[in-house]
């Protein structure tokens, strides 16, 4: 039951500021995901919590107690590394048992704990193998087992799934979610994959250039993105961001295509709308019309892409829909599902009381 707080955290490598004045409170038992592109400071932030990096400024505390000066070994955190960090000369069982061995726990108790942890991630048949004899997914499960063999104050996971193939990633994601739910240990999870963030997190902190842009539940981030960057990062496909121009005569895309919508202000803007919030319709109901640029079948749905100037706009369609290249389509949307952003700063332009 550990509550973590980061206060005014800074990290500088040479002259590069990697983390800038970061403030973050993580509730006990929370599953917090740090999400962002590579180089955004998310891994550095986690490494500071682990004690593998020293904070240049600022305070890290567990349950109100400053831990900056406590070395990694005594912070009682468990960490899963991107490339697993398994000990190559030890068997799976020895790898899992190592944290217990370091704590001077007797071998009988150790063996029992190893078996329990291995059973949780279905590793029992491999206990006597060496890491080099395992597949990537099995190695990742060894790393997981090693982190859950004891009950640490905090779980830290640094892109644990990014070295796995797509199918395995989905399966391991569910395992991690289940484990986190069962063990009820405060978890910080670093990833650049927005789907992992959406599926796993209680709250997501979206980071860019060393600062947190938005800290909220996945649902809130999806439905109410702080700015155009967050909107374009979250969702699959990500939100369509269309540069538009609004004047007295109406609203037009870059290429002049008229769009039937009420802009919150005049001048250039970025219009944001999600693929599932648009439908193809008859020309009489359309908010805008364009020619099909590409059309993809996904099985459970279809994706129609059109171009409005330089912007690609993806529309999610029914799974039975079939369209031809160049075919002219008419699109409608609910005006309440539109997002407006400043075209330069990317910040939200909020129409009164709404989005």
């Amino acid at each position: 039951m550990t509550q973590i707080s980061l206060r005014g955290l800074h990290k500088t490598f040479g002259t590069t500021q990697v983390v800038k004045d970061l403030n973050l409170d993580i509730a006990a038992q929370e599953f917090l995901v740090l999400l962002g592109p590579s180089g955004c400071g998310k891994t550095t932030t986690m490494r500071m919590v682990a004690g593998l990096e020293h904070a240049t400024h600022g305070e890290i505390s567990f349950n109100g107690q400053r831990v900056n000066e406590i070395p990694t070994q005594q912070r009682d955190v468990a960490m899963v590394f991107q490339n697993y960090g398994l000990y190559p000369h030890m068997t799976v069982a020895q790898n899992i048992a190592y944290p217990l061995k370091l704590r001077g726990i007797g071998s009988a108790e150790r063996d029992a704990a190893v078996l329990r942890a291995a059973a949780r991630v279905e590793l029992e048949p491999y206990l006597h193998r060496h890491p080099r004899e395992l597949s990537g997914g099995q190695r990742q499960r060894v790393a997981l087992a090693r982190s859950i063999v004891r009950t640490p104050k905090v779980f830290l996971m640094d892109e644990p799934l990014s070295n796995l193939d797509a199918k395995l990633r989905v399966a391991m994601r569910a395992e991690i979610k289940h484990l986190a739910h069962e063990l009820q240990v405060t978890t910080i999870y670093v990833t650049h994959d927005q789907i992992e963030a959406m599926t796993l997190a209680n709250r997501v902190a979206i980071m860019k250039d060393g600062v947190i842009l938005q800290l909220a539940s996945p649902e809130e981030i999806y439905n109410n993105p702080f700015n155009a960057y967050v909107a374009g990062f979250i969702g699959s496909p990500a939100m369509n961001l269309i540069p538009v121009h609004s004047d007295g005569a109406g609203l037009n895309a870059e290429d002049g295509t008229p769009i039937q919508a009420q802009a919150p202000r005049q001048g250039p803007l970025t219009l944001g709308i999600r693929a599932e919030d648009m439908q193809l319709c008859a020309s009489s109901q359309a908010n805008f019309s364009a020619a099909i640029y590409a059309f993809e079948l996904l099985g459970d749905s279809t994706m129609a892409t059109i171009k409005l100037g330089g912007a690609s706009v993806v529309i999610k369609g029914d799974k039975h829909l079939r369209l031809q290249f160049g075919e002219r389509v008419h699109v409608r949307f609910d005006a309440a599902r539109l997002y407006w952003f400043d075209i330069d700063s990317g910040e939200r332009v909020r129409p009164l009381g709404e989005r």
Partner: protein
Amino acid sequence: MPQPPKPVTNKPALIDGYRAPVNEQVAIWLRQMLVFVGISAIALPIAWITITAFKFPRDVYSLDTALIFTPTLENLQTVFDHPWNLGSKILNSFAVALGTVLLAIPMATMAAYAFSRFDFRFKQSIFMLVIASQFIPAAVVVLPYFLLFKQLGMLDTRSALVLINMSIVLPYAVWMMKGFIDAVPIEIEESAMVDGASRARVLWEIVVPAALPGIITAAVFSFTLTWNEFLFALIISKQDALTLPIGLIGFRTERGDLWELMAAGGILITAPMFLISLLVQKQFIQSLTAGSVR
């Protein structure tokens, strides 16, 4: 009718009816000659020593008995007798080499770890200094060493030889092992620290086992260097601490060079190294190819 199997040849013509052009054949022939010369240069002296060690003195110089002669084990026995006493010299060599390795390798491991993993001021310069200490010719430092050990009353002791050999071996060992430790992924160390291991335990329980092939390589290299060391042993030792290479000079007598005994001594020097390298060959190859599969 079944075709007879084609004779296996090592000719370059792999395809039926194809013959390499003449200039290519010449190139291949030249290459084979070069390999042959290279192998001969290494193998012939060893072959000569091995043969000579089993010859009676009268057969050593005669061309008639160069390859066909009556073999004897007498030489291998004689070298252990007075005045040669190679037995005590083998013991000295072994003690000095083992002592050097046992002290130098742990020290080199720690130094290499520090050079590999820690950031400190003048790290590059200090590392270069360690390596550069080997650029000083042995002949320059042999007299200072002699005077130093004379002052310390350590002349003609194995400890003095161990200390000198360490000064030779350590820079090489540090340099070699830094490379091997660099190849150990940092994540497994961080992982161990998160698991609760102190720096010392990380070094001995994680890094050393992971770099073991490299450490063994460095140990064998150090042992060989010490085992074969001649100049310092010649100057520092006189009677009690004489090593095997010094023992060999004893076979140059007023009666002339006793080649058959020197060859027998040569076998005694070479054989242990030969055995050790056979034993660790697997490790050695592994460490030479380290990183290629990771």
